[in-house]
């Protein structure tokens, strides 16, 4: 039975957020017998209530609280108050994800050494290596049922992937498949195999895809050690004079304020909310915010190099049938010093329903977002294929999440501002990826290519990064903050660099590893 903890129960480990990081950490701790409380800002919407409709689902799952933007990125013009496309529900953004589960590559952990000086970039090596993380990648893949690992069969290719794979082969790529996906290809772990429903981004109605909502959270609750408290919006983390955190102040949906005591606080609110909470927790003792002696809280915000390539053919494709992102070309993921950029990228199939495709194409690089030419493309909807481009982007100190100086949210908490400028390396990589993506489709007879720029970020990373030295980042290689020993960063905020890979698998691996560390430290120090 799920637990219910008393607000004055200072023996609990408190986690802020229930997504890939927080939801996984909560279950891992609960399985070890540790009393754990997750505060989730959003409501609990079980999978039966999820909707196969892009607009309705968006309204149901998305974090829509106002944010502002600044900087030269296109988002500041295209969607100035919606820089990130993430969820505000129990399960976090694992309720809305494609399922791509890729391990980071060895060279990416040593980015500063491998890439060298990259003008304007604030590169740092991770304080951990791939070898240290590998046992946890194994556990994460087993937990999530990742296809193509541990003997789990690959998914069957859908129409969109068949087109991309044929093109990939024609241009000479060797590593194209349906990829490593946290979507069941066969019944596994009490969940069914995929029914190729086409709505991977619109919740987990079919239950084939891993999300913390349908796996980690109910499993943790079944231990009797985990409480997940929805619609609790954390405003501040509180501390005592001895440089330890003591609990949090949160608001319920009516705006009533509550205090919850805790022995350890783990922040996993995604890379905009996590630094926002730390910055908003500023006190006389910590005037720049908690865990911010380095000044790096909120800085080095990364969002991956991204973009999309859409192709029109003269015969039907019907890309919308099948898993949204089950297609992956890995050949460009390597760091190749002979290219005009450092790091690498992937091409992954992407389909959108009619409504979201039209909206996406309203801002494209190749034709006006209205008029006959535009509507002809829409009328070719059945004849289209699409791919997403995702690669490593450069950390820059000036790309940052800050508290808005004047605007406040419904609870009186300053809203976050997200400042971002593309790095020259991101632009060079994107241009390369656009060309290669177009080549893939041209090789199988595309009659028209349309490129779309990055949309609101699904991958938000790096704003409380891991570092070996306290002056370079916010937390150590366990996610434990350098400044406060019982305060942890437990989401993608702790990424030292973005790596080229979709981040969820790494977030889950880090959470499993952090749970081991917390249990060990509790036994040693916190009793």
């Amino acid at each position, binding site marked *: 039975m799920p637990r219910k903890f008393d607000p004055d129960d200072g023996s609990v480990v408190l986690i802020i957020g229930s997504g890939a990081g927080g939801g996984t950490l909560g279950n891992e701790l609960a399985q070890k017998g540790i009393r754990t409380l997750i505060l989730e800002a959003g409501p609990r919407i079980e999978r039966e209530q999820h909707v*196969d*409709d*892009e*607009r309705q689902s968006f309204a149901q799952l998305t974090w829509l609280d106002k944010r502002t933007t600044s900087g030269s990125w296109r988002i500041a013009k295209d969607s100035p108050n919606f820089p990130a496309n993430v969820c505000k529900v129990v399960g976090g953004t694992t309720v809305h994800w494609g399922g791509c589960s890729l391990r980071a590559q060895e060279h990416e952990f040593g980015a500063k050494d491998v890439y060298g000086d990259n003008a304007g970039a604030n590169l740092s090596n991770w304080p951990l290596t791939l070898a240290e993380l590998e046992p946890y990648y194994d556990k994460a893949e087993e937990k999530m049922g990742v296809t193509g690992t541990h003997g789990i069969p690959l998914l*069957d*290719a*859908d*129409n969109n992937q*068949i*087109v991309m*794979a*044929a093109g990939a*082969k*024609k241009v000479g790529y060797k590593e194209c498949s349906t990829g490593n996906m946290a979507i069941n290809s066969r019944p596994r772990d009490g969940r069914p195999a*995929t*029914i*190729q*429903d*086409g*709505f991977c981004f619109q919740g987990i*109605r*079919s239950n084939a895809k891993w999300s913390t909502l349908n796996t980690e959270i109910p499993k943790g609750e079944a231990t009797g050690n985990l409480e997940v408290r929805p619609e609790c919006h954390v405003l501040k983390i509180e501390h005592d004079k001895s440089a330890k955190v003591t609990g949090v102040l949160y608001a319920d949906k009516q705006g009533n304020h509550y205090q919850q005591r805790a022995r350890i606080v783990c922040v996993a609110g995604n890379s905009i909310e996590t630094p926002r909470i730390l910055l908003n927790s500023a006190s006389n003792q910590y005037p720049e915010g908690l865990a911010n002696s380095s000044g790096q809280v909120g800085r080095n915000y990364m969002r991956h190099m991204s973009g999309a390539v859409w192709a029109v053919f003269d*015969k*039907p*494709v*019907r890309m*919308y*049938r*099948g898993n949204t992102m089950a297609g992956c070309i890995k050949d460009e993921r390597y760091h190749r010093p002979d290219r005009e950029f450092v790091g690498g990228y992937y091409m992954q199939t992407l389909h959108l*329903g*009619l*409504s979201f495709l*039209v*909206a996406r194409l*309203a801002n494209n690089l190749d034709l006006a*977002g*209205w*008029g*006959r030419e*535009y*509507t002809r493309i*829409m*009328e070719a*909807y*059945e004849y289209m294929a699409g791919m997403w481009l995702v690669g490593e982007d450069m950390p820059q100190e000036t790309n940052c999440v800050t508290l808005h100086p004047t605007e406040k949210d419904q609870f009186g908490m300053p809203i976050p501002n997200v400042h971002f400028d593309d790095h020259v390396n991101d632009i060079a990589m994107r241009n390369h990826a656009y060309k290669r993506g177009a080549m893939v489709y041209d090789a*199988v007879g595309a009659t028209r290519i349309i490129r779309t720029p990055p949309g609101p970020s699904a991958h938000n990373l790096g704003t409380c990064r891991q570092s070996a030295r306290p002056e370079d980042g916010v937390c150590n290689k366990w996610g434990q903050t350098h400044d406060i020993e019982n305060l942890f960063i437990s989401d993608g905020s702790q990424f030292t660099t973005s790596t080229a890979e979709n981040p969820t698998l790494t977030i889950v691996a880090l959470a499993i590893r952090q749970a081991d560390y917390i249990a060990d430290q509790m036994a040693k120090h916190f009793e």
Partner: protein
Amino acid sequence: MNPPVGVTVPVSVVSQVYKYHRLPPGLVEQLVSIYRTMFPHSTVPDEFYEHVVRKLDDKAALDQDLSGFLSDGVEALNSQTGTAWTGLSEEARIHALQRVEQTAFFQRLRSDFVLYFYSNPAIWPRFGYEGPSNDQGGYLHRGFNDIDWIKREDL
């Protein structure tokens, strides 16, 4: 409830039974016509375009400035052409719209159209989009890999 396929309705005819909150009939008619030039789908009847204008009207019921904003925008468009909108050729209409493309009026019309026209499930079959699938067992047995113009030996 899909309408009959292939029915062409003259541009000037809009529903006479629907009761608009704020937008006067002349404005509704011209907005439908402007939308047909902005987003031409020749086989799609006017009622789908009017669906978007009704959404604008719903918003105008809550936002008292919107009706005036739309009629001012239409008036500015008409005054720069010097001829009644109905008297303009399609080419002249496109040129007129290009001249106001950067205005808040045009951008508002465009974004609301993209929002409401293509998200209307009744229009999906006309574009070959089948929509919700989970209650029908997904696309697993309904063609998720039925593409027939790529040879499997090419994979």
